[in-house]
């Protein structure tokens, strides 16, 4: 048999990918505005953020909880640079009013730089330590943004979407435009990750994931590779943050706080921490659930408030718990198991290497 022939699983996946892309490309023509402007656009941009988390986890063995914070930092940088004070500029921030294209570039560069600093601090740890350290980054970012009223304050920066680059134009009046931008960026990020993991850097990173000690003794700089991977993930997160700022208009500490950080992790885990595609699958599942379960009340478990209503967080917590207990590799793991020959064994966690191996 030709070893390069596609397996049934690959054929199915490629077919489904093609169908998904066609449907997504044509979606604005037949879906209603809520679906395209909210659910699908959110899926693309949160999936992008989740993909940065999954990239680190699947190829670097590092589960990072700082990706939400990095996306928020990118949105805050963008907001500070592009918004203008004066009429409508009631929110806090520096209101530099610079050229939006420049703001875009600076937001991406600044976030990547901060990501590299975070990465440098955390790079000598892996596994569970990495999770803890990045979680502190995330919470510190939240409190920093909340306290420093110069650049954000608790209310954050609003109406960022009114200041988009001229080559993009008005996004508020043309939500479809944002939809296609988010769609395009998501595909770009996906292809970029697929490319990166095939480069010598990507291969080395996977070596570092599996055998950090061995890679170090072969002469590879393990912390450097982890740091660079974290920087790349920060770049992806910065794109997500910019899209979020354009979509929602407002970026506030509330967008990067602990619940939001956990939400992103939930998306990634529902999708599966082992495959990049899982990011968008998980984001889609999470956002659809959120939109349709939000108002559902479980008697005795809900707080019946008008603010968020229902008992969404309890339900999502239970679903998250079930996923982690039943299929730690999420939906992509379930899908992969469908094609496994032999008995259905509990899949070994590839994303969780033996935690305590600080090297350096």
């Amino acid at each position, binding site marked *: 048999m030709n070893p390069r022939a596609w397996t049934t699983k690959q054929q199915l996946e490629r077919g489904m990918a093609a169908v998904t892309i066609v449907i997504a490309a044509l979606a604005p023509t037949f879906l209603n505005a809520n679906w395209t402007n909210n659910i699908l656009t959110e899926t693309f941009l949160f999936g992008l953020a989740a993909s940065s988390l999954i990239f680190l986890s699947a190829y670097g063995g590092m589960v990072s909880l700082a990706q939400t914070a990095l996306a928020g930092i990118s949105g805050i940088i963008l907001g500070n640079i592009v918004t203008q004070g004066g009429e409508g500029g009631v929110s806090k921030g520096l209101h530099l009013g610079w050229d939006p294209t420049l703001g875009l570039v600076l937001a991406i560069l600044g976030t990547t730089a901060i990501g590299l600093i975070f990465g440098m601090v955390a790079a000598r740890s892996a596994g*569970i330590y990495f999770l803890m350290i990045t*979680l502190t980054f995330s919470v510190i970012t939240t409190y920093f943004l909340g306290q420093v009223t*110069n650049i954000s304050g608790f209310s954050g920066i609003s109406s960022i979407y009114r200041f988009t680059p001229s080559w993009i134009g008005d996004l508020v009046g043309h939500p479809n435009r944002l939809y296609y931008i988010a769609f395009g960026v998501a595909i770009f990020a996906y292809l970029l990750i697929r490319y990166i993991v095939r480069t010598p850097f990507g291969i080395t990173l996977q070596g570092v994931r599996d055998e950090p000690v061995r890679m170090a003794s072969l002469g590879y700089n393990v912390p450097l590779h982890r740091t660079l991977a974290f920087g790349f993930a920060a770049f992806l997160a910065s794109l997500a943050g910019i899209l979020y700022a354009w979509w929602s208009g407002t970026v506030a500490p509330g967008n990067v706080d602990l619940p939001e950080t956990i939400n992103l992790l939930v998306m990634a885990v529902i999708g599966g921490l082992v495959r990049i595609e899982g990011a968008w699958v998980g984001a889609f599942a999470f956002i659809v659930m959120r939109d349709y379960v939000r108002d559902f009340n479980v008697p005795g478990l809900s707080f019946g408030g008008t603010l968020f209503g229902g008992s*969404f967080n309890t339900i999502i917590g239970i679903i*998250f718990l079930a996923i982690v207990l039943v299929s730690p590799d999420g939906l992509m793991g379930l899908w992969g198991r469908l094609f496994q020959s032999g008995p259905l064994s509990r899949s070994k966690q590839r994303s*969780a290497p033996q935690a305590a191996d600080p090297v350096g």
Partner: protein
Amino acid sequence: MSALAARIPTREQLGSYLTLRKAPLLVVLALVVFAFSYVLFIAVPGTGAYSWRATTFGSAVHDPGSFIRITLDSVTFAAALFIVSSGFALIFGLMRVVNMAHGSFYLLGGYIAYEIQQTLTGQGFSLQGTEVNTWEWLIPLVVAAPCIAVVGLVTQQSFLRWNQGQELRQALITIAISVIIADQIIAHFPRAASSGAQRFGGSAVDLTWPGWTDRFVNLHVAGVSYSLAKLVMLGIGLAVGIGLWLWLYRTKTGMIIRAGVDDQKMTAALGVNIQRAFAIAFAVGSALAALGAVVWASQSNISSGQDGQWLLNSLVVVIVGGMGSIFGAAAGAILYAFVADFSAAYLPSAGPNCCGSYSIIFTFVLIALVLAFRPQGLFGRPG
């Protein structure tokens, strides 16, 4: 003799101590020395004019009273930090479980104690210290702590026990549990608040210290009077520390737990029932979260959303102090409390928005510095 001579550095060896490789260490040392001298000598009381030397209080030389007060604040805050995070460290050290629900346990314990105190005193929303006697503070404590111990035990037995060794999965499980508990806290506490929106708005409630602590003690040093309640808190922290030390180093259970921290498999292979030790450690660790919550909620307050704050506190203490060591937790708590309190109090007031609000950065700097030189934390062991 020759062995001794070999240990005396030659001129070349002396020179090698000051190579470029040591440069980062020297820079850090210089910065630390600068920070100390800034707090002790350089800072001056702010006079309205903006200057890099102007702070709210001025340095220890200018205002010894404030310096002593902030030092005591740090020490007492460290006591509360230690109570909460020693539980986190105990669980992590023995079982390698990062209990992400520790913050939720903290919050739940605090609310349970609050409701009990409200019921006991039959008072409304806010209590005067004089209306609370010692029992009305102690009973909430001794009820809430076992409650949370049971919650922790159930969590460990039903979800974590059969996932032993899968650290990431266990962390994810505790995150899921913390999400559920945090949401249910909003749904049910505080019971006096009628609507969910009220509760979600973070209606802060506070426990009340017993009446006799509600006064200031004259320390007879630089005219400082200090809150007796905070000194009681310090005493409780010390008692918890000594109790944990006695338990871990002077009893058989403690011996088993320390052996488990060193080598789990070997301990089990020697015929020790390590599962029992796990269960005990998890229950005690969770109860410490509740104890810390009662103490800190009496001093400050408790509101939904603080679970993240206290999870952060525990994480920072454990990351800085070293994973899974009780001395590490103490050292981490003291360092973190001092950095947090002193940076908030002694950052220069060099402008309308500067610089006190940047104090949280120093927490990050502390973590970064410790991890840069000791990735395993101050008291952690490598590997």
